[in-house]
Protein backbone atom coordinates (compact mmCIF):
# COMPACT_ATOMS: atom_id res chain seq x y z
CA UNK A 1 0.00 0.00 0.00
CA UNK A 2 1.53 3.34 -0.99
CA UNK A 3 2.14 5.82 1.83
CA UNK A 4 0.04 8.92 1.27
CA UNK A 5 1.73 12.30 1.71
CA UNK A 6 -1.13 13.42 3.95
CA UNK A 7 -0.64 10.45 6.27
CA UNK A 8 3.11 11.06 6.49
CA UNK A 9 2.58 14.78 7.12
CA UNK A 10 0.20 14.12 10.01
CA UNK A 11 2.59 11.66 11.66
CA UNK A 12 5.54 13.97 11.07
CA UNK A 13 3.73 16.93 12.67
CA UNK A 14 2.78 14.73 15.63
CA UNK A 15 6.38 13.59 16.02
CA UNK A 16 7.80 17.12 15.88
CA UNK A 17 5.13 18.71 18.08
CA UNK A 18 6.52 17.12 21.22
CA UNK A 19 10.00 18.46 20.56
CA UNK A 20 8.94 22.09 20.11
CA UNK A 21 8.72 22.88 23.81
CA UNK A 22 12.26 21.59 24.25
CA UNK A 23 13.41 23.64 21.27
CA UNK A 24 11.78 26.83 22.59
CA UNK A 25 13.24 26.34 26.07
CA UNK A 26 16.69 25.66 24.64
CA UNK A 27 16.54 28.73 22.40
CA UNK A 28 15.51 30.94 25.32
CA UNK A 29 18.65 30.30 27.33
CA UNK A 30 19.42 33.62 25.64
CA UNK A 31 16.91 36.43 25.83
CA UNK A 32 14.82 36.79 22.66
CA UNK A 33 11.53 38.27 21.53
CA UNK A 34 8.93 36.27 19.62
CA UNK A 35 9.87 37.13 16.07
CA UNK A 36 13.62 36.49 16.46
CA UNK A 37 12.85 33.25 18.29
CA UNK A 38 10.68 32.09 15.41
CA UNK A 39 13.31 32.92 12.78
CA UNK A 40 15.98 31.18 14.88
CA UNK A 41 13.86 28.00 15.09
CA UNK A 42 13.07 28.27 11.39
CA UNK A 43 16.77 28.53 10.51
CA UNK A 44 17.49 25.55 12.78
CA UNK A 45 15.01 23.43 10.79
CA UNK A 46 12.25 23.56 13.42
CA UNK A 47 9.64 25.88 11.91
CA UNK A 48 6.71 26.81 14.13
CA UNK A 49 3.62 28.79 13.20
CA UNK A 50 3.32 32.16 14.87
CA UNK A 51 -0.24 31.25 15.80
CA UNK A 52 1.18 28.38 17.88
CA UNK A 53 4.40 30.04 19.12
CA UNK A 54 2.93 33.03 20.97
CA UNK A 55 0.31 31.02 22.92
CA UNK A 56 3.07 28.50 23.76
CA UNK A 57 5.28 31.29 25.15
CA UNK A 58 2.38 32.54 27.30
CA UNK A 59 1.67 29.03 28.56
CA UNK A 60 5.32 28.40 29.49
CA UNK A 61 5.42 31.74 31.26
CA UNK A 62 2.23 30.93 33.19
CA UNK A 63 3.88 27.65 34.22
CA UNK A 64 6.79 29.65 35.61
CA UNK A 65 9.35 28.34 33.09
CA UNK A 66 9.89 31.69 31.35
CA UNK A 67 10.10 35.30 32.42
CA UNK A 68 9.29 38.21 30.17
CA UNK A 69 9.49 41.96 30.01
CA UNK A 70 8.46 44.69 27.60
CA UNK A 71 11.34 46.80 26.26
CA UNK A 72 11.68 49.54 23.69
CA UNK A 73 13.82 48.38 20.77
CA UNK A 74 12.68 50.34 17.76
CA UNK A 75 9.18 49.25 18.76
CA UNK A 76 7.84 47.93 22.01
CA UNK A 77 8.85 44.25 22.18
CA UNK A 78 8.23 41.54 24.70
CA UNK A 79 11.47 39.71 25.55
CA UNK A 80 11.48 36.19 26.96
CA UNK A 81 14.15 34.16 28.71
CA UNK A 82 14.35 31.01 30.83
CA UNK A 83 13.52 31.33 34.52
CA UNK A 84 15.52 29.30 37.09
CA UNK A 85 12.66 26.72 37.09
CA UNK A 86 12.81 26.68 33.29
CA UNK A 87 16.56 25.95 33.39
CA UNK A 88 15.96 22.99 35.73
CA UNK A 89 13.17 21.63 33.54
CA UNK A 90 15.28 22.11 30.41
CA UNK A 91 18.07 20.01 31.94
CA UNK A 92 15.59 17.22 32.78
CA UNK A 93 13.95 17.37 29.35
CA UNK A 94 17.32 17.37 27.63
CA UNK A 95 18.32 14.20 29.50
CA UNK A 96 14.96 12.65 28.57
CA UNK A 97 15.41 13.64 24.95
CA UNK A 98 18.88 12.10 24.81
CA UNK A 99 17.57 8.89 26.41
CA UNK A 100 14.75 8.71 23.86
CA UNK A 101 17.23 9.35 21.04
CA UNK A 102 19.54 6.60 22.30
CA UNK A 103 16.65 4.12 22.73
CA UNK A 104 15.23 4.87 19.31
CA UNK A 105 18.71 4.70 17.82
CA UNK A 106 19.11 1.16 19.13
CA UNK A 107 15.62 0.16 17.93
CA UNK A 108 16.09 1.63 14.49
CA UNK A 109 19.44 -0.03 13.87
Amino acid at each position, binding site marked *: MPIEDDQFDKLRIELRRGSLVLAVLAALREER*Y*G*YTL*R*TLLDDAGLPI*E*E*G*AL*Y*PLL*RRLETQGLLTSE*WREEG*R*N*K*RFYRLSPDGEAILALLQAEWEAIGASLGRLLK
Partner: protein
Amino acid sequence: MDLIERYLSAIKRNLPARNADDIVAELRDAIASRIEDREDELGRPLTSEEIAAAIKDFGHPLVVAARFRKQQWLIGPEVFPFYISVARIVLLTVAAIMVAVGVGQVLFGDREPLQALLQTIGGLSSSLLISLSIVTIVFAVLERAGFPAEHIGTWNPEQLPDVGDAQPGPWKAAAEVALSLAFLLWWAGLFSLPIPAGSAEFRIEPAPVFAELYWPILILAAARLLHNLIQWLRPRWKLVLGVTNALTAIGGLALLAMLYRAGHWATVVSTGLPAHEAAELQTSLDLALKIAIVVTGAIWILASLGALWSLSRERPRHATA
Protein backbone atom coordinates in the same frame (compact mmCIF):
# COMPACT_ATOMS: atom_id res chain seq x y z
CA MET B 1 -1.91 49.54 8.36
CA ASP B 2 -5.65 49.88 8.66
CA LEU B 3 -5.96 46.21 7.68
CA ILE B 4 -3.53 45.12 10.42
CA GLU B 5 -5.49 47.08 13.04
CA ARG B 6 -8.77 45.55 11.81
CA TYR B 7 -7.18 42.12 12.02
CA LEU B 8 -5.84 42.72 15.54
CA SER B 9 -9.18 44.13 16.61
CA ALA B 10 -10.92 40.95 15.35
CA ILE B 11 -8.48 38.86 17.41
CA LYS B 12 -8.90 41.05 20.48
CA ARG B 13 -12.68 40.61 20.50
CA ASN B 14 -12.16 36.89 21.10
CA LEU B 15 -9.33 37.06 23.63
CA PRO B 16 -9.70 36.76 27.41
CA ALA B 17 -10.31 40.38 28.47
CA ARG B 18 -7.73 40.22 31.29
CA ASN B 19 -4.65 40.23 29.04
CA ALA B 20 -6.12 41.05 25.62
CA ASP B 21 -4.22 44.34 25.24
CA ASP B 22 -0.92 42.71 26.15
CA ILE B 23 -1.38 39.87 23.65
CA VAL B 24 -2.50 42.21 20.89
CA ALA B 25 0.55 44.44 21.45
CA GLU B 26 2.83 41.42 21.05
CA LEU B 27 1.03 40.21 17.92
CA ARG B 28 1.20 43.71 16.44
CA ASP B 29 4.98 43.61 16.83
CA ALA B 30 5.15 40.11 15.35
CA ILE B 31 3.19 41.12 12.23
CA ALA B 32 5.14 44.35 11.83
CA SER B 33 8.45 42.45 12.14
CA ARG B 34 7.34 39.95 9.53
CA ILE B 35 6.32 42.72 7.10
CA GLU B 36 9.58 44.62 7.69
CA ASP B 37 11.61 41.48 7.00
CA ARG B 38 9.76 40.89 3.77
CA GLU B 39 10.20 44.53 2.73
CA ASP B 40 13.96 44.26 3.41
CA GLU B 41 14.11 41.17 1.17
CA LEU B 42 12.21 42.88 -1.66
CA GLY B 43 13.79 46.32 -1.16
CA ARG B 44 10.40 48.04 -1.42
CA PRO B 45 7.24 48.55 0.63
CA LEU B 46 4.67 45.74 0.45
CA THR B 47 1.51 46.30 -1.56
CA SER B 48 -1.83 46.06 0.20
CA GLU B 49 -2.39 42.63 -1.43
CA GLU B 50 0.94 41.39 -0.06
CA ILE B 51 0.06 42.68 3.41
CA ALA B 52 -3.31 40.90 3.18
CA ALA B 53 -1.50 37.69 2.18
CA ALA B 54 0.89 38.04 5.16
CA ILE B 55 -2.05 38.53 7.51
CA LYS B 56 -3.90 35.55 6.04
CA ASP B 57 -0.77 33.49 6.58
CA PHE B 58 -0.76 34.52 10.26
CA GLY B 59 -4.06 32.71 10.79
CA HIS B 60 -7.81 33.21 11.11
CA PRO B 61 -8.59 35.65 13.96
CA LEU B 62 -10.84 33.13 15.75
CA VAL B 63 -8.17 30.40 15.58
CA VAL B 64 -5.36 32.71 16.69
CA ALA B 65 -7.43 34.01 19.61
CA ALA B 66 -8.64 30.54 20.62
CA ARG B 67 -5.07 29.31 21.07
CA PHE B 68 -4.59 31.82 23.87
CA ARG B 69 -7.51 30.40 25.80
CA LYS B 70 -6.89 27.97 28.64
CA GLN B 71 -9.79 25.77 27.50
CA GLN B 72 -9.03 24.38 24.06
CA TRP B 73 -11.95 21.95 23.85
CA LEU B 74 -15.46 21.45 25.18
CA ILE B 75 -14.92 17.80 26.10
CA GLY B 76 -11.34 16.57 25.91
CA PRO B 77 -9.97 13.12 25.08
CA GLU B 78 -9.79 12.06 28.76
CA VAL B 79 -13.43 12.89 29.53
CA PHE B 80 -14.76 11.77 26.13
CA PRO B 81 -15.02 7.99 26.86
CA PHE B 82 -17.09 8.70 30.00
CA TYR B 83 -19.20 11.23 28.11
CA ILE B 84 -20.00 8.78 25.30
CA SER B 85 -20.82 5.99 27.75
CA VAL B 86 -23.21 8.14 29.84
CA ALA B 87 -24.74 9.76 26.74
CA ARG B 88 -25.50 6.29 25.33
CA ILE B 89 -27.18 5.18 28.56
CA VAL B 90 -29.25 8.37 28.85
CA LEU B 91 -30.28 8.41 25.18
CA LEU B 92 -31.23 4.71 25.18
CA THR B 93 -33.31 5.19 28.35
CA VAL B 94 -35.08 8.25 26.96
CA ALA B 95 -35.72 6.49 23.63
CA ALA B 96 -37.08 3.39 25.38
CA ILE B 97 -39.43 5.47 27.58
CA MET B 98 -40.73 7.42 24.58
CA VAL B 99 -41.28 4.25 22.56
CA ALA B 100 -42.98 2.50 25.54
CA VAL B 101 -45.33 5.48 26.02
CA GLY B 102 -46.03 5.58 22.26
CA VAL B 103 -46.83 1.86 22.15
CA GLY B 104 -48.96 2.23 25.29
CA GLN B 105 -50.98 5.00 23.68
CA VAL B 106 -51.68 2.82 20.64
CA LEU B 107 -52.52 -0.31 22.66
CA PHE B 108 -54.54 1.25 25.45
CA GLY B 109 -55.38 4.71 24.22
CA ASP B 110 -57.45 6.18 21.47
CA ARG B 111 -54.53 7.14 19.25
CA GLU B 112 -54.27 6.01 15.66
CA PRO B 113 -50.98 4.10 15.09
CA LEU B 114 -49.81 6.60 12.45
CA GLN B 115 -50.65 9.58 14.67
CA ALA B 116 -48.89 7.95 17.65
CA LEU B 117 -45.86 7.10 15.46
CA LEU B 118 -45.53 10.68 14.18
CA GLN B 119 -45.96 12.11 17.69
CA THR B 120 -43.41 9.64 19.09
CA ILE B 121 -40.89 10.52 16.37
CA GLY B 122 -41.45 14.24 16.95
CA GLY B 123 -41.19 13.90 20.72
CA LEU B 124 -38.24 11.53 20.43
CA SER B 125 -36.07 13.92 18.42
CA SER B 126 -36.64 16.87 20.76
CA SER B 127 -36.25 14.72 23.90
CA LEU B 128 -33.01 13.17 22.61
CA LEU B 129 -31.67 16.59 21.65
CA ILE B 130 -32.48 18.06 25.08
CA SER B 131 -31.05 15.02 26.89
CA LEU B 132 -27.85 15.14 24.84
CA SER B 133 -27.52 18.88 25.48
CA ILE B 134 -27.87 18.37 29.23
CA VAL B 135 -25.32 15.52 29.27
CA THR B 136 -22.94 17.63 27.16
CA ILE B 137 -23.23 20.63 29.48
CA VAL B 138 -22.67 18.42 32.55
CA PHE B 139 -19.54 16.86 31.02
CA ALA B 140 -18.23 20.22 29.79
CA VAL B 141 -18.43 21.39 33.42
CA LEU B 142 -16.75 18.15 34.59
CA GLU B 143 -14.01 18.73 32.00
CA ARG B 144 -13.28 22.11 33.53
CA ALA B 145 -13.42 20.66 37.05
CA GLY B 146 -10.80 18.00 36.19
CA PHE B 147 -13.23 15.07 36.79
CA PRO B 148 -11.52 12.05 35.21
CA ALA B 149 -8.16 12.39 36.97
CA GLU B 150 -9.76 11.44 40.30
CA HIS B 151 -11.98 8.73 38.87
CA ILE B 152 -9.17 7.13 36.86
CA GLY B 153 -7.05 7.15 40.01
CA THR B 154 -9.69 5.52 42.23
CA TRP B 155 -11.51 3.00 40.00
CA ASN B 156 -11.32 -0.55 41.22
CA PRO B 157 -10.64 -3.42 38.77
CA GLU B 158 -12.41 -5.75 41.23
CA GLN B 159 -15.68 -4.11 40.19
CA LEU B 160 -15.35 -5.22 36.56
CA PRO B 161 -18.04 -7.73 35.52
CA ASP B 162 -17.04 -11.38 35.19
CA VAL B 163 -16.49 -12.61 31.67
CA GLY B 164 -19.39 -15.03 32.16
CA ASP B 165 -21.75 -12.44 33.69
CA ALA B 166 -24.98 -12.30 31.77
CA GLN B 167 -24.98 -8.56 31.50
CA PRO B 168 -28.09 -7.51 29.59
CA GLY B 169 -27.52 -5.87 26.23
CA PRO B 170 -27.94 -2.11 26.15
CA TRP B 171 -31.39 -2.21 24.53
CA LYS B 172 -32.77 -4.88 26.88
CA ALA B 173 -31.37 -3.13 29.94
CA ALA B 174 -32.65 0.26 28.75
CA ALA B 175 -36.08 -1.23 28.06
CA GLU B 176 -36.26 -2.76 31.57
CA VAL B 177 -35.23 0.49 33.22
CA ALA B 178 -37.57 2.51 31.00
CA LEU B 179 -40.57 0.26 31.70
CA SER B 180 -39.91 0.38 35.46
CA LEU B 181 -39.54 4.16 35.27
CA ALA B 182 -42.62 4.58 33.09
CA PHE B 183 -44.73 2.47 35.50
CA LEU B 184 -43.40 4.42 38.49
CA LEU B 185 -44.21 7.76 36.89
CA TRP B 186 -47.64 6.55 35.80
CA TRP B 187 -48.43 5.17 39.25
CA ALA B 188 -47.27 8.39 40.88
CA GLY B 189 -49.68 10.24 38.59
CA LEU B 190 -47.02 12.19 36.72
CA PHE B 191 -48.50 11.20 33.38
CA SER B 192 -51.63 9.35 32.35
CA LEU B 193 -52.50 6.81 29.70
CA PRO B 194 -56.05 7.16 28.40
CA ILE B 195 -56.90 3.52 29.19
CA PRO B 196 -60.47 2.72 28.04
CA ALA B 197 -62.29 1.44 31.11
CA GLY B 198 -65.85 1.00 30.02
CA SER B 199 -68.28 2.18 27.42
CA ALA B 200 -71.33 4.40 27.21
CA GLU B 201 -73.31 1.86 29.30
CA PHE B 202 -70.83 1.12 32.06
CA ARG B 203 -67.45 2.03 33.45
CA ILE B 204 -64.89 0.07 35.43
CA GLU B 205 -63.41 1.57 38.57
CA PRO B 206 -60.46 0.19 40.53
CA ALA B 207 -61.34 -1.35 43.90
CA PRO B 208 -60.38 0.50 47.12
CA VAL B 209 -57.59 -2.05 47.73
CA PHE B 210 -55.42 -0.24 45.13
CA ALA B 211 -55.78 3.05 47.04
CA GLU B 212 -54.93 1.23 50.29
CA LEU B 213 -51.82 -0.29 48.70
CA TYR B 214 -50.76 2.93 46.87
CA TRP B 215 -47.57 3.50 48.89
CA PRO B 216 -46.41 -0.13 49.07
CA ILE B 217 -46.79 -0.44 45.27
CA LEU B 218 -44.95 2.87 44.74
CA ILE B 219 -42.08 1.75 47.01
CA LEU B 220 -41.90 -1.65 45.31
CA ALA B 221 -41.77 -0.04 41.84
CA ALA B 222 -39.00 2.32 43.00
CA ALA B 223 -37.04 -0.61 44.48
CA ARG B 224 -37.41 -2.59 41.24
CA LEU B 225 -36.20 0.40 39.24
CA LEU B 226 -33.16 0.61 41.51
CA HIS B 227 -32.52 -3.11 41.03
CA ASN B 228 -32.74 -2.81 37.23
CA LEU B 229 -30.38 0.18 37.26
CA ILE B 230 -27.80 -1.69 39.37
CA GLN B 231 -28.07 -4.77 37.15
CA TRP B 232 -27.38 -2.61 34.13
CA LEU B 233 -24.67 -0.31 35.45
CA ARG B 234 -23.02 -2.35 38.24
CA PRO B 235 -23.51 -6.03 37.37
CA ARG B 236 -20.60 -6.96 39.66
CA TRP B 237 -22.52 -5.92 42.80
CA LYS B 238 -23.87 -9.42 43.13
CA LEU B 239 -24.68 -9.25 46.84
CA VAL B 240 -26.61 -6.00 46.43
CA LEU B 241 -28.38 -7.46 43.39
CA GLY B 242 -29.23 -10.63 45.29
CA VAL B 243 -30.66 -8.59 48.19
CA THR B 244 -32.67 -6.19 46.01
CA ASN B 245 -33.93 -9.10 43.93
CA ALA B 246 -34.98 -11.09 46.98
CA LEU B 247 -36.57 -8.07 48.70
CA THR B 248 -38.52 -6.98 45.63
CA ALA B 249 -39.59 -10.57 44.95
CA ILE B 250 -40.78 -11.06 48.55
CA GLY B 251 -42.41 -7.61 48.56
CA GLY B 252 -44.08 -8.29 45.21
CA LEU B 253 -45.42 -11.67 46.34
CA ALA B 254 -46.66 -10.18 49.63
CA LEU B 255 -48.46 -7.45 47.69
CA LEU B 256 -49.95 -9.99 45.32
CA ALA B 257 -51.13 -12.03 48.33
CA MET B 258 -52.77 -8.93 49.84
CA LEU B 259 -54.39 -8.17 46.50
CA TYR B 260 -55.58 -11.77 46.16
CA ARG B 261 -57.05 -11.73 49.65
CA ALA B 262 -59.01 -8.56 48.88
CA GLY B 263 -61.07 -10.77 46.55
CA HIS B 264 -62.35 -7.82 44.59
CA TRP B 265 -60.20 -5.69 42.32
CA ALA B 266 -62.50 -3.72 40.06
CA THR B 267 -66.12 -2.63 40.14
CA VAL B 268 -68.43 -2.48 37.15
CA VAL B 269 -70.56 0.64 37.53
CA SER B 270 -73.62 0.50 35.31
CA THR B 271 -74.60 3.66 33.50
CA GLY B 272 -77.38 2.07 31.48
CA LEU B 273 -76.35 -1.60 31.36
CA PRO B 274 -79.09 -3.98 32.60
CA ALA B 275 -78.40 -5.20 36.13
CA HIS B 276 -78.01 -8.91 35.24
CA GLU B 277 -75.53 -8.10 32.44
CA ALA B 278 -73.56 -5.88 34.81
CA ALA B 279 -73.48 -8.74 37.35
CA GLU B 280 -72.27 -11.19 34.67
CA LEU B 281 -69.60 -8.74 33.59
CA GLN B 282 -68.51 -8.28 37.20
CA THR B 283 -68.20 -12.07 37.65
CA SER B 284 -66.15 -12.45 34.45
CA LEU B 285 -63.95 -9.51 35.40
CA ASP B 286 -63.31 -10.90 38.90
CA LEU B 287 -62.41 -14.30 37.44
CA ALA B 288 -60.07 -12.80 34.83
CA LEU B 289 -58.29 -10.65 37.41
CA LYS B 290 -58.04 -13.60 39.83
CA ILE B 291 -56.39 -15.71 37.12
CA ALA B 292 -54.07 -12.79 36.24
CA ILE B 293 -52.96 -12.41 39.88
CA VAL B 294 -52.34 -16.16 40.28
CA VAL B 295 -50.41 -16.40 36.99
CA THR B 296 -48.35 -13.30 37.85
CA GLY B 297 -47.57 -14.77 41.25
CA ALA B 298 -46.49 -18.07 39.69
CA ILE B 299 -44.24 -16.29 37.17
CA TRP B 300 -42.63 -14.18 39.90
CA ILE B 301 -42.01 -17.24 42.08
CA LEU B 302 -40.38 -19.09 39.18
CA ALA B 303 -38.29 -16.01 38.23
CA SER B 304 -37.14 -15.57 41.85
CA LEU B 305 -36.23 -19.24 42.16
CA GLY B 306 -34.29 -18.96 38.88
CA ALA B 307 -32.40 -15.91 40.17
CA LEU B 308 -31.61 -17.69 43.46
CA TRP B 309 -30.38 -20.73 41.51
CA SER B 310 -28.06 -18.53 39.41
CA LEU B 311 -26.76 -16.79 42.54
CA SER B 312 -26.05 -20.11 44.29
CA ARG B 313 -24.13 -21.36 41.23
CA GLU B 314 -22.20 -18.11 41.09
CA ARG B 315 -20.65 -18.42 44.55
CA PRO B 316 -18.51 -21.56 44.18
CA ARG B 317 -17.06 -20.14 40.97
CA HIS B 318 -15.90 -17.04 42.87
CA ALA B 319 -14.62 -19.10 45.76
CA THR B 320 -12.23 -20.92 43.44
CA ALA B 321 -11.30 -17.80 41.48
